[in-house]
Structures are given as structure tokens and as C-alpha cells.
């Protein structure tokens, strides 16, 4: 039977999967999917410091992630370079600092995550973060759609695109942060990338795209936990979840792509 700490951890992971599916869909449309993979690495120096000085790794991860996100947003605004380029610059430094700071015995956990029970408080904080991400996406859904379709049309409609980009980047980083606990810095971005890519292959309808992306993400997380609990208890669920997610993508290749 599951005990409460396990149940909290699994529910939070499933909630995260929904948020990752939504954020991933918009990140794919914004052509910044790879950013999720890279931005998660920005958490590494924080995780390293937390392991080194024995405080909550999420606290360390969130601090450096927030600084990294704001830095990327500022650099992007001031230099006019693409998000990808900016993330590349911030990321390389972060990984190097993270590798130096993280004690060797904790490096695998920092990179690949670990399944651990959650206290009620940790669960509630995590769930609040996920709900915030979902709310931000739904609240700004129309602005995001118009900003993606034609930025100058959106600006002419009175939208503040820079502020919108910041909100999205923060929601994006927050979802990476929630995923860090069980997927680790190396894989936390993958649930943002893979389900959205799978879903995009299957549909051209926006609502279907968002729903299928969330579903693919939830199925990967749910079955990943089931596999590691009942069949491979010695393995951390993170990599298994990512493998299942990638398998779903390969399955999607069997279907003809939706007409563009």
C-alpha cells in the first residue's frame, strides 16, 4: 500500500505533468522548447550549494533559477538576441559552477532526481506552484496566442509583450523547478519538450493540442511511477518517465502528421 508521503509525491508529479504539458505546448509554439532543457541546468549551482551546506535543494535550485530567468529576460531585452542564444550563455556558466559546487556523491541525484516522500507542507507548496502555472497559462492564453501569431498585431491591440514574455518565462521556470525534485536538472526539461512535440504531430487544433500534450505527459509520469514501483524498484522514476515519454513520441510517428 502507499503511505501518505508517497501519495503526496505522486499527486504532485501528476499535477506537474499537466503544467508541463501546457507550458510545453506554448514553448513549442514560441520555438523555445530547448530552453526548458537548458534552463533546468541553471538550477544546478543552487542544488550544488544546497547539497554542500545541507539545506533544502529546492530552495537553492529556485534561487538560482529565478536569478537565471531574470538575467535571460534582461539580456534578451537589452541585446535583442534570441532567447536560445541568451540561455546558451547563462547555461554554460551555470553547469560549470554547478559541477564545481556539487559534492561528487550527490551529483547523480542533482542530475537525475530521486523519488522521495513529501511532507504535507511540501506537497501544498508544490501544488500551489503548479496551480499558479496553470492559472498563468489560462489567464494569458489569448495574449500568448496573439503574441505568437503576429507580435506587432498583438502590440497594436494594446498588449504589453515584454511583460507577457516575463510571465511566461517565470511560469516556464517554475514548472522546471517543480520537476527538478524527481527528474533532476538533466531531465526536468524533458517533460516540457517531449509530450508537446508528440501532441503537435497529431493535431492542428489548438485545444486538442493542449489536451493531448497534457495527457501524454500525465500518462508518462503515471506509468513511470507504476513501472518503478512494481517492476524496477531499484531505479529512480525520472529516467523511466522520460523513456516512456520518448516511446509515446515514437508511437506518434506511426500516424501521418497533421496537415500544416
Amino acid at each position, binding site marked *: 500500500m502507499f503511505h501518505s508521503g508517497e501519495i503526496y509525491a505522486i499527486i504532485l508529479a501528476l499535477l506537474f505533468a499537466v503544467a508541463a504539458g501546457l507550458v510545453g505546448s506554448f514553448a513549442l*509554439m514560441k520555438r523555445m522548447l530547448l530552453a526548458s532543457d537548458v534552463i533546468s541546468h541553471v538550477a544546478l549551482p543552487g542544488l550544488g550549494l544546497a547539497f554542500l551546506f545541507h539545506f533544502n535543494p529546492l530552495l537553492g535550485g529556485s534561487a538560482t533559477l529565478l536569478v537565471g530567468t531574470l538575467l535571460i529576460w534582461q539580456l534578451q531585452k537589452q541585446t535583442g538576441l534570441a532567447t536560445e542564444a541568451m540561455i546558451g550563455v547563462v547555461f554554460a556558466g551555470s553547469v560549470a559552477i554547478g559541477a564545481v559546487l556539487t559534492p561528487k556523491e550527490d551529483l547523480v541525484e542533482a542530475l537525475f532526481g530521486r523519488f522521495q516522500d513529501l511532507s504535507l507542507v511540501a506537497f501544498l507548496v508544490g501544488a500551489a506552484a503548479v496551480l499558479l502555472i496553470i492559472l498563468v497559462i489560462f489567464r494569458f*492564453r*489569448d*495574449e500568448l*496566442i*496573439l503574441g*505568437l*501569431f*503576429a507580435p*506587432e*498585431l498583438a*502590440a*497594436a*491591440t494594446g*498588449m504589453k509583450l515584454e511583460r507577457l514574455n516575463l510571465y511566461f518565462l517565470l511560469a516556464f521556470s517554475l514548472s522546471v523547478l517543480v520537476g527538478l525534485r524527481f527528474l533532476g536538472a538533466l531531465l526536468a526539461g524533458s517533460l516540457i519538450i517531449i509530450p508537446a512535440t508528440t501532441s*503537435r504531430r497529431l*493535431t*492542428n*487544433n*489548438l485545444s486538442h*493540442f493542449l489536451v493531448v500534450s497534457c495527457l501524454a505527459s500525465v500518462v508518462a509520469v503515471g506509468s513511470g511511477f507504476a513501472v518503478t514501483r512494481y517492476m524496477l524498484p531499484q531505479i529512480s522514476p525520472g529516467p523511466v518517465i522520460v523513456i516512456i515519454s520518448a516511446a509515446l513520441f515514437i508511437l506518434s510517428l506511426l500516424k501521418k502528421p*497533421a*496537415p*500544416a
Partner: protein
Amino acid sequence: MTPILSVRDLTISFGNRTIIQHLNFAVDPGDNLAIIGPNGAGKTVLLRALLNLLPYEGAIQWAPDAKLGYVPQKIAADRRLPLYVNDLLAAKARLLKLPAQDVRLVADRVGLTPELLETSVGILSGGEFQKALIAFALLGDPNVLLFDEPTASLDELAEEHIYELLRDLQRERHLTLLLVSHDLSVVYQSATKVLCLSKGKPCFGPPREILTPETLEAVYSAPLKFYKHYGH
């Protein structure tokens, strides 16, 4: 008549490069202003400044009751997104807090069928896509429409439909039109004022004064063939 738009001493620069310098003109309600000029003369830049999307020096003054609708160049839109026409129109309607039936009304007005509303923007023809952009601009009931190259890369029939639609809309809704156009014959027929931008001095006035072979040659820095359509 109080102008709906007055532009005084407008200068727009990017870094060291000045695109528009000391430009002055005014547009009255109901005018059809055609903005012409060679590539790189600053036509799109001017529209963007009028929409307050660019920093500029000088004064751009819209009348307090001016409500702007904008139709950008088609290439400024990303058509690879998983979006139906209806997604775009409904998104703008929700942002402006308009009733949902407004989407159907503007779609009907520009000739977008329910099937086209449920079609991916990526597979619309050039003319259909242009109609979708016009419907988007019409949501919110603007009284000024700024239009960047309405018929670029359209075939003649689609081009004719778009101009006909614009003329009808202008008549029905008493719209003021600001149109960037390369089609001088259409400009001659329908514009009430012409603003020409070029590397030299800009010129502004009624078509009969501005669209002379001499002025056009100076604007485009090349001899132009130009046909007047009498009887229209």
C-alpha cells in the same frame, strides 16, 4: 473639419540611420490616404509609429474618438501555428470583452464562411488569409483602418475582391483608411490623399497633384509607366 490624425515634424531613426525626417501631414475623418514610395522608404515604419509601436520624435496626434484597427503585412504572421481562424478572432474578442457573436458578424461581413473559420491558418489561400486579417482588425469596431500592403502576393482576382471589400467597408462604416500600397492605379482611383515617402523630400496632397509622372519619377528614382483609368 478637425483632422482625425495630425502628424507634425515626425522623425524616426534607428541608430544612426534616419528613416523619416520632419514629416508633416493630416488626415480627415473618412479620408482614404495612400502611402506610397519605394522599398525602404519607411512606409511600414510610419504605420508602426502611428500605432505607437516605435519610438519617434515629433508629434503624432489622433483624435480622441479615433479607434484603430491594423492589418499587418501577411509575412509578419506565423502561419505554422496550430491555430484555426476562429482561435485568433475569438482570442481578440475575449481580450476586448466583446460578445462571442461579434466574431461571426465580422466573419460574415468579410466573407469568411463557418468552414473557413474552422480552418487552420496555415492552409488558407492568400486572399482568405487577408480576409481573416481584415476580420481581425474589424473586431472592436474601429473607425480607422491602417493597412500594410493589402494585396501583396495576391492574384488579380483576389486583389480586386480585397479592394472591393475595403471600399464597401469604408462606405458602410465611415472608415478612415491609411493604406500602404504599391498599386498606383488603385491609388489613383480610390485615394483621397497621397503621401509619398522617398529618400528625397516627402510629398503630400490629392492624387491628381501627386501622381504626376514627374513626381513619381522623383519618388521612385526611375521612369514609371502609369495608366489613368478614366470613367471610374
